[in-house]
């Protein structure tokens, strides 16, 4: 894994790019899914295996767990054995990783605080922060779009569609 400066055109914003070997990223995802599949299969085994209709609540989940398990094991084997045809094939780039991570955190924080801060403030705040994290630096846009968006969403969902917010 390495970090390099990706945006040479905008030196004022140090936009980094996280470069990961494709193989390691895929293997990490496969192992996480394999662990999840094992837990899923374990829970499926605890379900009733037989009912009056013949096949119980556990039958289909066990079939699904088998499909996932076999696919994952084969993918892990293929991942270890395969060689990329070009150097670029073997890398996955995540541009602006800090901004991506912060965006996830912003969305989670706004969702958790939504009942406390209210719909209009919550949406306006989230829109402002996401735009800033997305690289928007024009304050004319940053200060006008978020409140307009929040008011628009409030008007459509609450006033027109009748969605009730606490």
């Amino acid at each position, binding site marked *: 894994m390495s970090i390099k400066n990706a*945006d040479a055109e905008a030196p004022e914003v140090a936009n980094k790019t996280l470069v990961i070997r494709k193989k390691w*990223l*895929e293997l990490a*995802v496969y192992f996480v*899914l394999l662990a999840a*599949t094992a837990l*899923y299969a374990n*829970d499926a085994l605890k*379900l*009733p295996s037989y*009912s009056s*209709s*013949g*096949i119980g*609540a556990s*039958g289909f*989940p066990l079939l*699904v*767990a088998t*499909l*996932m398990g076999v*696919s994952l094991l*084969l*993918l892990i084997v*293929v991942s270890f054995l*395969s060689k990329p*045809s070009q150097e670029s094939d073997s890398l996955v780039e*995540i*541009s602006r990783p800090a*901004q*991506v991570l912060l*965006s*996830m955190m912003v*969305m*989670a924080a*706004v*969702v958790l605080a*939504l009942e406390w801060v209210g*719909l209009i403030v919550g*949406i306006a705040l*989230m*829109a*402002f922060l*996401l*735009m800033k*994290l*997305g*690289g*928007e630096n024009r304050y004319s*846009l940053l200060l006008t*779009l*978020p409140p307009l*968006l*929040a008011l628009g*969403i409030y008007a*459509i*969902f609450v006033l027109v*569609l009748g*969605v009730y*917010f606490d």
Partner: protein
Amino acid sequence: MIDNLLIGLNAFADPMVLVGLIAGALIGYLIGAIPGLGPSLGIALMIPFTYSMDPLVSIVMLVALFAAAEYGGAISGILLNSPGTAAAVATTWDGYPLTKQGRTGIALNISIISSGIGIFVSTILLFFTAVPLSEYALNFGPSAYFALALLGLSLVSSFSSGSMLKGALAMGFGLALATVGLDSQTGVPRFSYHPDFFEGLPLVPVLLGLFALSEVLFMIEAGASHKVKNQPMSGILEVPFKTFYKMKYLFLRSSLIGYFVGVIPGAGASIGSFISYAVAKRFSKRPELFGNGSYEGIAASETANNASVSGSLSPLLALGIPGSATTAIMIGALMIHGVQPGPLLFTTNPEIPYTVFVSLWLSVPIMVFIGLAGARFWAKVADIPRPAIAAIVASISLIGAYASTSSMFPVYVALTFGVVGYVLRKANIPLAPVILALVLGDMLETNLRRALSISNGDVTTLITNPLSATLLAIAALSFFLPALGMFRKKVKGYRATNT
């Protein structure tokens, strides 16, 4: 059949249905014209707005949006060489060269009219094939339905992103998600660690997370977009009728290709447009123009990718099987309004399928008018700053998820699946099979259990029925043949490097 068509036409006596059609076409253009958004994301985003609408209005709006978004992808392709959807890639090959030659208006005109022709002709095909197909499907038993659902899933998985194993994994993941909640036959809670999970994972928040919120993270990753130079729209109303008349056989051929490719689960609009483009080049008197601004190239691609919209609606309406991520989302939208697609739909709710047919036909003049009259505006849409789009999409997704049950649980689901979708896409695991399996999971399990129950647990019942045996054989072939091809290719490559 004609009587039923009048029922569909009668639906438009309600002005709100017509308003829904126009609104759908406008929003579809808007979404299609923005690079990165597309019909799947557009429909997922629009579902929350339809919760309180009349089912017919919302279905007409979503169908119009689907058709218009498929066209809208061509706008940014022609103007910026950046197709809004994968299906518009072939259009870009000739559309952008025309823009560079100062003939943007002509390229847009040909693409708009061709899209309209594609939808019009393919809806005639839809009308004459979906109805008999649904009548035939009324005879399907549980084993045939199980085999059919499996065939749909296997085709989508084998078509997706070149890796059969990743497609199978995505399919398994979606099926696992579909098993969450109370077991429909025994009432036993499965994988439900909180009462909120008893009704299963809510489909709309999962869709919003996987498609919309993951796309928001990709937009954040891409950063701010650069300002695009405005193109002059000269010649948009100056394409003579004879230009189109000369291409009459091309339109017919491309509509047929687009429609029948659209019917095949997983094939979709992009494959249809590529095949149609290649066939048009082969039949053309001036093949050397292809790739350098050929009118026939644009017409072939746009006719086929729009014809595939009607094609993909055929298995959805007649069999209740979605053939793509977009139609899987459409099924979710129909279910929210209490409409179960499938053969019974034509007898229990004939106004739904026939209104869909009529709305596709009526969408043609509306789409052509909106496209030609608003060309300058659509050109500017492609220039909306990316961070602003990300903020709008994130806000609508999260509030839309909340609006599904007026509680926070679906919002947490959407957020979680946003991150899951981002990671899966980074690992090149396709999302379409996840959604299809989530939608088809219940149908697959219920019919498997019914078939086994009828046969007292005898698994051979799945292969002794000729119809289900044929469908299962096709499913197995579609799944394993690409794998065999890839294996042969790898062995060949391995031998080549070692000799």
